[in-house]
């Protein structure tokens, strides 16, 4: 895998990589992908739609909420930066009017 391909994956996965990691992962991925590619032979021309067996997702009723604020403090306590009852993050939208 080329350096550019590894960097593209890192961009998608939102991980900054060191130059050493880029080289090392490229080599690792070549070996791993050439191993896992054997499933293509195994599957052959099979184009069936995969299914997930008898276990399927279920939804619960949207009812019986807990008391508002019951878990707010314990969950916010884990946030690296907060302001009152909000988690604080950097600005993501630029304001054109300055």
């Amino acid at each position, binding site marked *: 895998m080329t350096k550019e391909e590894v960097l593209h994956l890192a961009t998608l996965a939102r*991980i900054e990589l060191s130059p050493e990691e880029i080289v090392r992962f490229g080599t690792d991925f070549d070996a791993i992908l050439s*191993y896992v590619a054997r499933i293509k032979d195994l599957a052959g021309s*099979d184009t069936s739609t995969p299914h997930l067996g008898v276990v399927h997702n279920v939804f619960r009723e949207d009812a019986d909420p807990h008391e508002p604020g019951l878990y707010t403090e314990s969950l916010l306590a884990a946030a*690296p930066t907060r302001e009152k009852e909000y988690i604080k993050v950097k600005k993501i939208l630029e304001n054109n009017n300055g």
Partner: protein
Amino acid sequence: MAKRTIQETRTLYQNGELSPQDVIAECMNVLALREPDVHAYVDVFSDLEKRAEEAQKTLEQKGGEAPLLTGIPIAMKGNILVNGERATASSKILENYIAPYDATVTARLRAAGAIFVGATNMDEFAMGSSTENSAFGPTKNPHDTSRVPGGSSGGSAAAVAMESALASLGTDTGGSVRGPASFCGLVGLKPTYGAVSRYGLMAMGSSLDQAGPLTHTVGDAELIFNVIRGKDQYDATSWDEGVYPEVSVKEMYRIGVPYAFLEGLAPDVRALFDAALAKLTADGHTIVDISLPYMKEGLAAYYIVMPAEVSSNLARFDGVRFGLHVSGDTLLDDYRKTRALGFGAEVKRRILLGTYVLSSGYYDAYYGTAERVRDRMREELAQNFENVDVIVTPTTPTPAWKFGEKADPLSMYLEDIYTVGANLTGVPAISIPAGTVTRDTVHLPIGIQAMAPHNGEKRLFDIAKRYRGE
């Protein structure tokens, strides 16, 4: 700690011949003697003596009516939440994370009276087969401290093997309970997918993960499994009785062995496996040669499906809501720097690999094909279970290896070859000690694995107990 089963300990408690304080004192003695070298735990909890006192009171007040695990010390893998305790999953990104609630398995063990000894060490986010991928340093195998304990639940296995807990919980995504059980001479169970709630477990591969016990005896594993199993409103994939048909216990079993899958085993490992089969035959069971061509290639499907699920599950670690935060110039920069510093090499490798197999243009060739192979594996198993009652293989192709011996990621991945099939298909599998093989004059334990149809834990416990003479 003296070797006792949970049931024996319970009886001694009830007769007043032993107290939870005695047992906790034994635990702490082992911890003082062996933990500095073995490093089974990331944290040993600070309230053990207090909990032992409470357990003693409960036993005095309630006697035989006291909950089943009252005063029984149990170690918990570091990716299972224990309310108010640090839960790191052996990652730098969660170094200071305090669990805000109990996982369902924790809550059930707590309600049954268990004393939690500590959070055990593991491969970071359960990614590895040796516990060398911990951000807090490796765990050593109590049988030979120059060797790995297996992984990813290596700390949970070492904690029980060195006698600092009567049992432990691990999690098993591709063999992470069974592998360490094999390397440390223990019993390890990967339950049927959905038999045990995943609520409060840090997700790795959500379609594969199950929590399971590591114990000295099959009876203890059964006891713990019966406490933690069952439908949970907080895990939509957990199920009640009735989803799968009852799997019966029999007088004698037809045991399927995929002989073609055993090629390339070291001669002494193969000899030990053959001796185990000979014992099963002598006990009256029938061995049948079966063919599992898809299962044999399951590892390739596993190393596509698992990283794909890893890449989406670990997207939540962004330095915003919890865990490590590294500040950059922009929010995107915060994410990239936090994840760069917070994750170790193997975690990054799997996230990137998962991103690749899910990316546009490659999705169907990798992920789609792997899921189709997974379907064929389920069909293959279902067909074989019409002919045989259980399927037996080695648990691991080798005994414990030396630290650093498997530096190449693919050579480590190949260690999971016998275990990933049960996760990909959802069937239960148990590893039990089969004996020892010798490496550098040291006798190292190694396990054999039995798989049964979905919901077949009872059958696995039955055949395993009979094999072990319990």
